[in-house]
């Protein structure tokens, strides 16, 4: 028996259509995949350096009047009787931050963070060192006194004017306060609103239907309002009218809470709608009130869907930066905020600030901070997908 391959029997035009459409579709998906791959590769390539830090080992022989002059003196000792210009070059090999963070009281060997220019030279990004600095650094590398280690400052530090010690901890704490409070505020209201819309159609008639239609348009419109408009809302109402102070996490939290509220409402409504009617009927039939039915039967059944939607809302809020810039959370935060009433910034805003910085050493910090943010968001999204798969109830 001869097998019939329909695809090879197609003539001219039909065959061309078949081939071209298949290739076009495959091509489109490949382009999307390639774009995203370049995106991640470029970010990874640029950011990976920020996870290591260049450090200099110095030999302190004499204690001077201040830590600064002690460090400077031991830097001068690297060459034999340096002139003024050489001294200046040598001084600039360590981060200016070392003067205030390290306490040197007795002679010995100390490890200091290298200046960003040295850091970039060692990592091979760019070379801004002068001749004296370059020979000194090369010598020190040979002696094993300049080396790269894991960059703890990137994880534990806050923003700084010196890229070599700038870190994301301050921004991470700010993100935690802002997003935590935002969800604390948006979750109950969002679920309450969804429940009211789905479970309590008390009144029949035109007025109620109109109210429902209005709510429907209202929620869907709120979900699609550009995020920057929420920033202006926060600025005009919270800061200008209510007189809250700028830059604090609380204002950011309320703004972001308003922003994610419609997302939570929509996902909660979808989750409530998937709960079949017979559950409600059975509960009502046993004599439960409508509220008892809702609280003991419908909401628990819909909870996995609601939680999934909330996690996606959290991910959305974490990535949001435009409204926070509007309410002044672009402050230069040197110390991590300790309460939600302190000036704070969040990770995406920190990325925005670093990306704008003229200091070239911040370029790799920016990419690294983006990598951290992306890993956090992808984890959250995957968690949501997993939750949906794991706890989804098939009715």
């Amino acid at each position, binding site marked *: 028996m001869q097998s019939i391959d329909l695809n090879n029997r197609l003539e001219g035009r039909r065959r061309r259509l078949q081939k071209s*459409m298949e290739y076009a*579709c495959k091509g489109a998906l490949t382009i999307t995949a390639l774009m995203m791959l370049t995106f991640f590769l470029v970010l990874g390539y640029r950011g990976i350096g920020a996870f290591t830090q260049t450090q200099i080992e110095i030999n302190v022989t004499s204690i001077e009047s201040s830590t600064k002059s002690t460090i400077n003196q031991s830097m001068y000792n690297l060459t034999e009787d340096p002139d003024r210009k050489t001294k200046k070059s040598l001084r600039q090999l360590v981060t200016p931050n070392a003067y205030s963070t390290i306490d040197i009281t007795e002679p010995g060997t100390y490890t200091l963070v290298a200046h960003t220019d040295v850091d970039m030279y060692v990592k091979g990004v760019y070379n801004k060192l002068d001749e004296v600095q370059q020979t000194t650094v090369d010598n020190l590398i040979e002696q094993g006194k300049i080396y790269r280690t894991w960059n703890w400052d990137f994880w534990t530090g806050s923003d700084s004017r010196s890229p070599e010690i700038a870190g994301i901890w301050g921004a991470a704490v700010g993100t935690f306060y802002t997003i935590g409070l935002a969800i604390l505020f948006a979750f109950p209201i969002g679920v309450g609103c969804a429940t009211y819309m789905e479970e309590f159609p008390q009144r029949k008639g035109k007025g109620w239907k109109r109210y429902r239609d209005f*709510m429907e348009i209202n929620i869907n419109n709120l979900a699609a309002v550009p995020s920057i408009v929420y920033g202006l*809302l926060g600025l005009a109402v919270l800061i200008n009218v209510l007189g809250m102070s700028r830059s604090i996490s609380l204002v950011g939290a309320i703004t972001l809470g308003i922003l994610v509220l419609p997302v939570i409402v929509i996902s909660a409504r979808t989750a409530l709608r998937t709960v079949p009617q017979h559950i409600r009927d059975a509960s009502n039939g046993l*004599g439960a009130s409508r509220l008892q039915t809702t609280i003991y039967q419908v909401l628990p059944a819909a909870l996995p869907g609601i939680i999934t939607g909330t996690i996606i809302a959290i991910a959305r809020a974490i*990535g949001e930066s435009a409204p926070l810039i509007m309410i002044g959370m672009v402050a230069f935060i040197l110390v991590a905020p300790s309460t939600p009433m302190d000036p704070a910034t969040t990770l995406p805003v920190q990325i925005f600030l670093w990306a704008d910085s003229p200091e070239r050493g911040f370029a790799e910090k920016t990419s690294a901070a983006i990598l951290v943010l992306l890993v956090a968001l992808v984890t959250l*999204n*995957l968690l949501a997908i997993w939750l949906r798969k794991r706890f989804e109830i098939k009715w």
Partner: protein
Amino acid sequence: MFIWIGPKQKSSGFNEDIIKGFFRISSWITIAITFAIVASLSYETIKFFTLVEPRDFFFNTTWSPQTAFRADSVGSSGEFGFIPLIWGTMFITFLAMLIAGPIGLLSAIYTSEYLKPSQRQIVKPLLEVLAGIPTVVYGFFAAIVLGPWLRNMGVTLGLDVATESALAAGVVMGMMIIPLISSITDDVIKAVPSAMRDGARGIGATREECIKDIILPAALPGIVAGFIMAIARAIGETMIVVMAAGLAANLTANPLEAVTTVTVQIVTLLIGDQEFDSAKTLSAFALAFTLFVITFILNWIAYRNYKNAINRLKQ
């Protein structure tokens, strides 16, 4: 002990009313938010229009909000022409749609019509994850990677490319909305009843003919709605253009030059401290209100079309 039982009898008492009241108030809060947005934006906008003629705002072609320090010097009032800003916004949105439209549509056709369910289960979540990437990341990519790269390429080709060209912002914004378009389109295509698909295949149409002649026409209203949603999203997008598009208001159709957008100007006007009585600050609210109205109309049209399309397909 006797309890009166009747239709008015409540099964539980006081607490029930409190919780119900909470639900009701929650739903009022969402309405209050909409009103707060409209009220606060329109209040500042009206204040702005007492300082600047609405005609100047909507029809002037110059945008230079910088007010001089001395009241009597030249250009002390600033010029608030809205045209170049909305042009820049539309232009970047157009470039983005040029990229995202075809790619998003074709990938949606592929995920919904070609992939096996098991493969679909992997690809769909991946696209969802892509849709969750923060826009500041795309902005960084446009400003730090693509912008300089396009500029260097322009130099080798002998073209004059601005570092903050409309092209870089448009391309990256296109990347951002591909997942949005493809996920909406995919949903619409999936809503096309399989009876239509089977009927077409049954009378001898190939898969591609079935897609071209049956599925796409049936899904078209929904796809158009998805495109409109994507356009609304691109118009309101802020971080990409703040980081990658320029500040100077140019009326140009050359994608290699810098243009500015409505959202860029809002951010530029409001960053830092501001006093709420100058036309410069208030103009940001006028811009935001216009933006709000535009996106509201677009979304309303899209949402109605989308719902009608899905309902019609499901019947």
